[in-house]
């Protein structure tokens, strides 16, 4: 099926997530969509698959006919099927029940026998092996993907959108997936492959589009040139002023052979030595392991192996509150979900962050404290303003104002995401002040310029692998971009040493 997207715009409040995107995908194409986090890839795909509607004036044309897609069910009706990064299936149900659940014309009592025949035929065709009576929660992520693909085909999909499909599946499953996608494309299916893995895109796609900040910044056909793609994804380097190398002191945080594990990935044998006053930047696509790493440094995730020492004290396996009392503060990216308490005022937050003793709240002292902090952190609000009424930038400054004093280690997730340049410079001014007082900082950012500008050393994460610490003064956006996209890693890359 031929797909044409014309002048797609999408606003979320003030945010302009898609800025007039035009893209034509002929039948039988495997179209790659590249872009960093927040580039607008997901928005565009959600519009095509009916999860959200584009602003008026945008057009979706399928096989020459303009269509309006109201919902995901509507999308599949038009032949558009989307495979989500986390499979949207029903783990406690049987495979066959999952398979037939999306069909609207199945009637009150589905003919299970007939459906089972269809299911087995499709599974055989693509060489997938399933027992239809088994439960979905016994399957691996890769198998659930396979199930979802044949389900969408059975429902009549002629356009298949895959969102980061190679995350969390094994190498052999990836080979099978790519073979399946190529077969489907040969039969005239249109495949849209959303990814940040350059290698996957290069080996699979016969047409690539790159999005950046909501705009389609370039298209390319094979032969694909990695460095051009990286430049399109991350843009030209704009300097934020002179770098200030840290005057580093004694060891603050010492990680020895730390191994981490969650349902999606394992990170093995991280060795890192962070000095007082040093800033470590963590780069990588979202979900590459850096989130788990920073939470382990905060004591929120327990390592499955190795030792964590802060200023020579062993904190391995201790709880978050022990870390906090030892001078570790963690500011999460999800401000209103994890960082702040909606429904409480700025004063309430500052009072709570001071770990108050006693019974009765000292209102005057609390409001005085709040006024001081609001002033010194330049927050647009009053002591009685509820945090949810603040703008994103002000919420971010409020979170920073919650940091205790003195501190040993500050852990930040996307400290300046969505902020204007003045706020970024202001916030980093405050953070560098902490460094001069002897604290170390570890932060995650998807903005490579920010990482290069403010860190002393950089760790790059890719699919649970961690790079050696890279000296920020001797690297470039280009080099980091390649590492983030999975290029230039040593073959047996795993642990890092510093």
């Amino acid at each position, binding site marked *: 099926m031929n797909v044409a997207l014309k002048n797609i715009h999408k606003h979320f409040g003030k945010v302009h997530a898609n800025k007039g995107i035009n893209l034509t995908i002929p039948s039988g194409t495997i179209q790659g969509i590249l872009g960093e986090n927040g580039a607008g890839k997901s928005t565009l795909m959600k519009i095509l698959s009916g999860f959200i509607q584009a602003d008026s004036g945008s057009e979706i044309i399928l096989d020459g006919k303009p269509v309006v897609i109201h919902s995901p069910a509507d999308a599949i009706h038009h032949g558009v099927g989307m495979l989500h990064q986390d499979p949207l299936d029903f783990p406690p149900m049987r495979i066959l029940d999952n398979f037939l659940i999306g069909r609207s014309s199945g009637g009150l009592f589905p003919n299970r026998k007939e459906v089972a025949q269809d299911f087995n035929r499709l599974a055989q065709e693509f060489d997938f092996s399933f027992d239809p009576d088994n439960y979905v929660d016994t399957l691996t992520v890769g198998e659930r993907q396979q199930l979802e693909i044949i389900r969408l085909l059975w429902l009549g999909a002629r356009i298949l959108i895959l969102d980061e499909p190679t995350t969390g599946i094994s190498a052999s499953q990836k080979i099978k997936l790519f073979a399946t996608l190529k077969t489907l494309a040969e039969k005239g299916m249109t495949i849209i492959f959303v990814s940040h893995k350059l290698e996957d895109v290069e080996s699979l796609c016969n047409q690539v589009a790159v999005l950046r900040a909501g705009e389609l910044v370039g298209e390319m056909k094979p032969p694909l040139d990695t460095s051009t793609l990286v430049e399109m994804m991350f843009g030209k380097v704009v300097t934020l002023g002179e770098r200030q190398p840290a005057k580093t002191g004694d060891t603050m945080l010492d990680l020895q052979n730390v191994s981490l594990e969650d349902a999606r990935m394992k990170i093995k044998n991280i060795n890192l030595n962070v000095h007082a006053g040093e800033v470590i930047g963590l780069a990588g696509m979202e979900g590459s392991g850096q989130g788990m790493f920073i939470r382990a440094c905060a004591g929120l995730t327990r390592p499955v192996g190795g030792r964590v020492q802060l200023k020579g004290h062993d904190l391995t396996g201790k709880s978050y*509150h022990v870390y906090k009392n030892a001078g570790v503060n963690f500011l999460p990216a999800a401000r209103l979900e994890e960082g702040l*308490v*909606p429904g*409480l005022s700025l004063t*309430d937050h500052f009072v*709570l962050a001071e770990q108050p003793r006693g019974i009765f*709240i000292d209102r005057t002292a609390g409001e005085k404290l709040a006024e001081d902090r609001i002033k010194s952190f330049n927050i647009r609000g009053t002591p009685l303003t509820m945090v949810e009424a603040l703008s994103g930038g002000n919420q971010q400054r409020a979170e920073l104002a919650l940091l205790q004093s003195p501190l040993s280690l500050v852990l930040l997730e996307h400290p300046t995401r969505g902020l204007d340049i003045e706020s970024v410079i202001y916030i980093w001014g405050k953070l560098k002040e902490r460094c001069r007082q002897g604290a170390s900082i570890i932060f995650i950012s998807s903005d490579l310029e920010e990482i290069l500008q403010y860190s002393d050393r950089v760790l790059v994460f890719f699919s649970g692998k961690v790079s050696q610490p890279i000296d920020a003064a001797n690297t470039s956006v280009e080099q980091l971009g390649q590492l983030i996209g999975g290029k230039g890693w040593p073959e047996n890359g795993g642990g890092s040493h510093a």
Partner: protein
Amino acid sequence: MLKGRLGGFIFQFLAFVLALGFVSVILISAGASPMEAYKNMLTGSVGSMRKFAEVLVSFVPLLLVTAGLLITFSAGLWNIGVEGQIVLGAIISVWVFRLFVDSTLPPALIITLAILGGMIGGALWASLAGALKTFGGVNEIFGGLGLNFVSTALTLYLIFGPWKREGVASMSGTAPFPDHFSLPQVPELRISLWALGIALVGIVIVYFILQGTYFGLKLKAVGKNFRAAYLLGIPTWRYSMYSFLICGALAGVAGAVQVAGVYHRLIPSISSGYGYLGLMVAMLINYQAIWAIPVALFFAALNIGSIQLPIVMKLDSSLAGVLQGVLVLFVLLMEGIRQKFLKKA
């Protein structure tokens, strides 16, 4: 107009009018006159000093339970188990009275001990639901509901088993205690000013906990965002447990007051549904302690006012429950509509 206090008030008033209108339609379709029914409810509740005293008798446990629930709601917990906590308060106070039935200690001391006992009983029963939640991962709604059934069964076992009255055990409860075990009552009326005082002290304490203490602030932080509260350094599970203990203690006092001030024995349904009614009051006042007194009084008045409906108008007295339920639903509905408009604006 939608924003702020005035907007909220207008919508709540609208909800009240709609609820009355809705119940009126039900009454008309049942062939009864709504105006007459409302008039009867009014005279039945505040028509005489005697009747108003009855309203206060019903108001005392309702206010205590509401006060307790304000604490658990602040901590973000749905303490459905409050019914069982009332029952355990009653059971323990009866147990204390039985212990001292032949003692020569001053009755005032025994009554005090019985009420304290009820408080502890309610708190311990609540701590079961709390422990199931914090250590066992059992949702407090399910845990509480299960414990409610257990508490009912326990009451019946005691009435028909170890504590059965002489002769034949019956659904009318255990044998009544001597008169000196009763909270002193106003002459000619059934209300005890002591009971009323206890209830008012309860809500005042809760008001100050929530408004003016670090404890209350932390509780609210836990309730509004468990994750962020934890990251801010609050020992969240401990605060969940504290809130269960406080709510259970207040519910236990309510149960003990039902024994010492109203029934003077253990009866099968000693909680009389005040736990569930308290949940409705707490929702209706949007968890604002300051509104607990008027709204609990209003609900108690509806309860008492509907008692004479079967006699006067041949209507079932459950009309009060219908009106209370409909009122809560409409207030929540109107609030939802207001929020929707606010979002659009």
